């Protein structure tokens, strides 16, 4: 007997939204969504009303106004005449610089500490435990300030380097100065032949890549292991160095004449600078300028080096009086005899070396401070070290967890095959551990980047200090500034995690 039931004929009733399990969850979600949106609208309205009451409008025009303040560390051209937008950009680059350096160093520290914490050597393992627990459990801000204080209080002032029996002296053949204002290191200056050297260097990088490929193929085919590391190292250094030395030997001793504004023909450099103290100089190539400046230093003069890129620029600088001594290739001197655009010039009796393809400009004590070279400011170093050490401690734990997640049997199997411990680690354990390590590592990179906003504690001019600090203070645009700042950190974080996710996809277990 067949039973037959009528299909439900009743239509949809409103009460079903609550009593019918098919619709209930949807109803709850819609209501919750409306409430959340309502809350946001009220908050936004509240902000608008309160800003209105304070007489403030919402306007990003301030980004195009003159900033008026100076920034010490700038990776791009910036002066107090630049705009607030440019100041923000300088800050952004400083943030990215410290975040980039920090991520690299934190990774290196973290991987070492994580691996060593599992070491069978009791002392090493315990030392790493002390590092990890010490840095992980004390607030980052404290570490930043402690490192900064140590650097300013325990290192000498620039003026301690002065005098016959100075209290402090420079390191590494007078090329590095560690002061309480930062570490001054030599700056590279490119001369003639740089292009060739760089081309050879790039070619040797390609060579290294090709050799490694060949070595892997060969190992897979025959089992022979080539000394990849030593060959790579040799390829990395030897060809570039050989070309550099050959080129230096060929041209470095070439003598380039000096042309000076308002000099008499055949005057010596010494006589000329006796009248024109601390001259501004310019040179082609730049290395000749470095040589000229050290010649001037021998005469107790401080040179102001103006960088020029081409013969036309050099000529314009001399004509405008921006530099009064110019070093140049002998064949260019003809254009400078007599007068340049009405400015009287003459060739001096002295000449300078043309210079090597790459030279280093040493920092020198001048006036209040060291000049020349590159200054790694204390604020950058303190922030960089503190961020790296702090985040490195977390990464160490992630690495340790990753290694422990690989079954002990893998190690034993690899030992049984005769692999030595460091090959076991590099070829068997770490590749498997990476799958566990990468995802939490991404969030550590994000943490490090965001934590760099503590920079203001040591006066590092990151984006929080320029856009989010001085600019907001001078213009009073808190809301706009903070929104931009939030947007910047959001975008940066999304980009970092995007890139890291691509890497993660390449190392994670491939399932087919």
């Amino acid at each position, binding site marked *: 007997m067949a039973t037959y039931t009528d299909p439900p004929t009743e239509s949809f009733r409103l009460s079903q939204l609550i009593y019918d399990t098919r619709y209930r969850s949807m109803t709850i979600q819609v209501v*919750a969504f409306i*409430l959340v949106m*309502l*809350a946001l609208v*009220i*908050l936004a*309205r*509240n902000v608008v*009303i*309160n800003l209105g*009451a*304070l*007489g*403030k409008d919402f306007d990003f025009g301030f980004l195009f106004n003159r900033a*008026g*303040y*100076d*920034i*010490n560390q700038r990776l791009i051209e910036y*002066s*107090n005449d630049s705009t607030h937008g440019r100041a923000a950009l300088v800050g952004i680059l400083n943030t990215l610089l410290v975040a980039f350096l920090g991520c690299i160093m934190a990774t290196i520290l973290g991987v070492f500490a994580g691996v060593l914490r599992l070491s069978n050597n009791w002392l090493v393992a315990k030392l790493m435990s002390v590092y990890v627990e010490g840095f992980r459990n004390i607030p980052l801000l404290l570490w930043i300030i402690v490192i900064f*204080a140590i650097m*300013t*209080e325990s290192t000498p*002032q620039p*003026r301690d380097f002065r005098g016959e029996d100075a209290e402090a002296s420079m390191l590494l053949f007078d090329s590095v100065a560690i002061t*309480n*204002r930062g570490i001054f290191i030599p700056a590279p200056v490119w001369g003639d032949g740089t292009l060739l050297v760089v081309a050879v260097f790039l070619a040797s990088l390609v060579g290294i890549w090709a050799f490694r490929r060949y070595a892997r193929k060969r190992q897979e085919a025959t089992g022979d292991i080539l000394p990849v590391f030593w060959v790579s190292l040799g390829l990395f250094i030897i060809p570039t160095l050989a070309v550099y030395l050959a080129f230096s030997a060929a041209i470095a001793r070439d003598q380039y004449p000096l042309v000076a504004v308002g000099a008499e023909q055949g005057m010596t450099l010494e006589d000329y600078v006796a009248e024109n103290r601390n001259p501004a100089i310019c040179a082609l190539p730049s290395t000749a300028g470095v040589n000229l400046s050290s010649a001037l230093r021998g005469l107790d003069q401080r040179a102001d080096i103006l960088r020029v890129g081409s013969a036309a620029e050099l000529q314009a600088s001399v004509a405008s009086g921006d530099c009064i001594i110019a070093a140049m290739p002998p064949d260019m001197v003809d254009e400078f005899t007599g007068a340049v655009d009405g400015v009287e010039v003459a060739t001096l009796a002295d000449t300078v070396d043309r210079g090597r393809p790459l030279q280093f400009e040493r920092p020198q004590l*001048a*006036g*209040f*401070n060291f*000049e020349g070279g590159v200054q790694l400011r*204390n*604020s950058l170093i303190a922030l960089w070290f503190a961020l790296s050490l702090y985040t490195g401690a977390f990464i160490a734990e992630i690495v340790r967890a990753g290694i422990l997640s690989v079954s002990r049997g893998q190690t034993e199997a690899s030992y049984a095959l005769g692999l030595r411990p460091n090959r076991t680690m590099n070829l068997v354990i770490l590749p498997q551990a990476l799958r566990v390590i990468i995802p939490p590592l991404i969030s550590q990179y994000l943490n490090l980047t965001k934590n760099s906003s503590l920079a*203001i*504690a040591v*006066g590092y*001019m990151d984006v929080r*200090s320029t856009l989010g*600090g*001085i600019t*907001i*203070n*001078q*213009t*009073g645009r*808190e809301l706009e500034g903070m929104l931009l700042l939030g947007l910047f950190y959001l975008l940066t974080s999304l980009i970092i995690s995007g890139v890291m996710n691509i890497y993660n996809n390449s190392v994670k277990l491939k399932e087919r």
Partner: protein
Amino acid sequence: MKKSVFLGTLAVAGLAAGFASAQTLAEVQERGALNCGVTTGLTGFAAPDANGEWAGFDVAICRAVAAAVLGDPMAVEFVPTTGQTRFTALASGEIDVLARNTTWTFSRDVDLSFEFVGVNYYDGQGFMVPRDLGVSSAMELDGATVCIQTGTTTELNLADFFASNNMSYEPVPIETNAEAQQQYLAGACDVYTTDASGLAATRATFEDPSAHVVLPEIISKEPLGPLVRHGDNEWGDIVRWTLNGLISAEELGITSANVMELAAGTENPEINRMLGTEGELGAMLGLESDWLVNVISSVGNYGEIFEGNIGENTPIGLARGLNAQWTDGGLLYSPPFR
């Protein structure tokens, strides 16, 4: 349920914030304490003393306003602010008045929507260097490293000064005066720059103040004064006339010692009006008639405040200079109480 409570709270908070701007006086009286923004610590101007009590030249302004409004100079909640946080604190209503050696400038007055009620100290930006650096003029500072408090007008003045004299410098931005002091003493910067009064106050706390010199150049005008939010003129009037009262009291010879005696009535009608024995000046401000008596008996007149905190007999050792009464060749000039 929870959500509706949350929303309700939000709505109430929104309404409260909307109304808050117009009735600071009532709010302060209801709270029973004045929220006053001061520096995080600048000896002589605002710093906690050995007993943890705030004391100083700016603190006295806060205490004077509290005495005028609440009759009790101790009814003040001090909110330490940095150069960066002070304006936000005032704009958001966290503090009722900001007395933190803040320079009166056009953009702060107009664009940031604050009301400067007067000038309690005429200052200017100066430079301090260690004596053994051998520098005697700011014009010799080419290439120097300069410590500077970030988020202040000094930052802009400094940039202008060096640019207009065609000199270069390296700024070291510092958040608070205490940190700047540490950096300067460690030699991380050659020069410390801020308002000359601040330099004198900072130098007074050094182990050996005579080892440091304040250079003669004053590179800016820095009229420092207390400020309030736009939009509540009654409250602005109270703070303004409290400050004017302190200045007038010195001019008319009213001191904390004789104010009670004078409050009984004098021959001078202006003193009588100020101290409430004649006229209704207090009531016009919405205060008690003896408001200025409370103020002067608790903190003294302007001259007493100056001498007690930053004057020549204190470690700070500032001369009156521009901050003398107009009758003594200074710039202090209070409008009449009439």
